[in-house]
């Protein structure tokens, strides 16, 4: 005799990964806090002040990791989109959505911190430089993706359309990266200069950037896990609602 499916079975179909994430998330949160404190110490105490730009150059140590994390997040949206289109499993749609949202947070920070650096260095908050413009286009593309997902019916058709938008939008990421080499630009090419070398001559600058990049990557993993677990919970709630509607209809028939 087959066992009657229970509400816990429903949870298993969509929320099985949630307990594992719930256990891991606090550890990632603690790691994020520790790495952030280490990064702040290095940025404000350890690294030397850059000779030409002065103290404002220290924005760079958080600006670049924000950009790296945003690019990684949008790359993940594209990968999740491919898997969703291929397998049609809701878990990939949830992952893509969570990554797009986290990516938008970091892409917004890239634009804001870049603007705060540009004002004292260039004398303007904003300029239509190739890298800044392509980054702004990236921000608009994923802003559109999130608006679509927030406002449209939450159906598999919309999820498939969202997956396509997420994949196409990610094509802008390599354009942003190579933009300083493709077009004439005033944006600094610090990590890999136009001559092929790197612009960070002091090893302390490289170490600080590396630690900050690790800190932001771990923080991204933490935020992604929190949001992804929440979206899995939401999928579970939707299944429970459907099961409840059926159960109530059955009870009404009796």
């Amino acid at each position: 005799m087959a066992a009657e499916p229970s509400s816990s079975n429903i949870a298993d179909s969509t929320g099985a990964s949630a307990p594992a994430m719930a256990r891991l998330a606090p550890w990632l949160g603690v790691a994020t806090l520790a790495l952030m404190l280490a990064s702040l110490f290095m940025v404000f105490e350890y690294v030397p002040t850059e000779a030409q730009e002065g103290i404002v150059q220290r924005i760079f140590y958080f600006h670049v990791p924000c950009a790296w994390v945003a690019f990684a997040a949008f790359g993940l949206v594209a990968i999740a989109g491919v898997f969703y289109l291929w397998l049609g499993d809701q878990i990939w749609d949830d992952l893509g959505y969570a990554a797009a949202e986290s990516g938008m947070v970091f892409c917004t920070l890239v634009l804001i911190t870049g603007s705060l650096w540009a004002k004292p260095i260039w004398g303007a908050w904003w300029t239509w430089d190739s890298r800044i413009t392509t980054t702004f286009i990236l921000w608009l593309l994923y802003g559109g993706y999130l608006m679509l997902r927030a406002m449209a019916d939450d159906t598999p058709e919309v999820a498939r359309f969202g997956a396509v938008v997420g994949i196409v939008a990610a094509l802008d990421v390599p354009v942003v990266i190579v933009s300083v080499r493709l077009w004439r630009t005033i944006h600094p090419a610090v990590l890999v200069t136009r001559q092929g070398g790197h612009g960070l001559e002091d090893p302390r600058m490289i170490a600080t950037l590396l630690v900050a990049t690790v800190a932001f990557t771990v923080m991204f993993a933490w935020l992604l896990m929190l949001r992804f677990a929440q979206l899995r919970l939401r999928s579970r709630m939707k299944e429970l609602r459907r099961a409840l509607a059926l159960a109530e209809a059955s009870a009404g028939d009796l």
Partner: protein
Amino acid sequence: MDNFGYLFAAYSVIFAVIFLYVVFIWRREARLEAEVRALEARLRELGQGSRPAPADTSRGRQ
């Protein structure tokens, strides 16, 4: 200490935005967990489990 205001603003914005995003996630999670618990309790009351159900077409993402 020229331009310290810009440096301070940049780091403040980063931590403020991330803090607000974490609060946004936690608040929604608490609401969702409460709703899932209520639905599970209601299902247990009815003594029913999952069956094939019509597609959910609720609007937007939460």
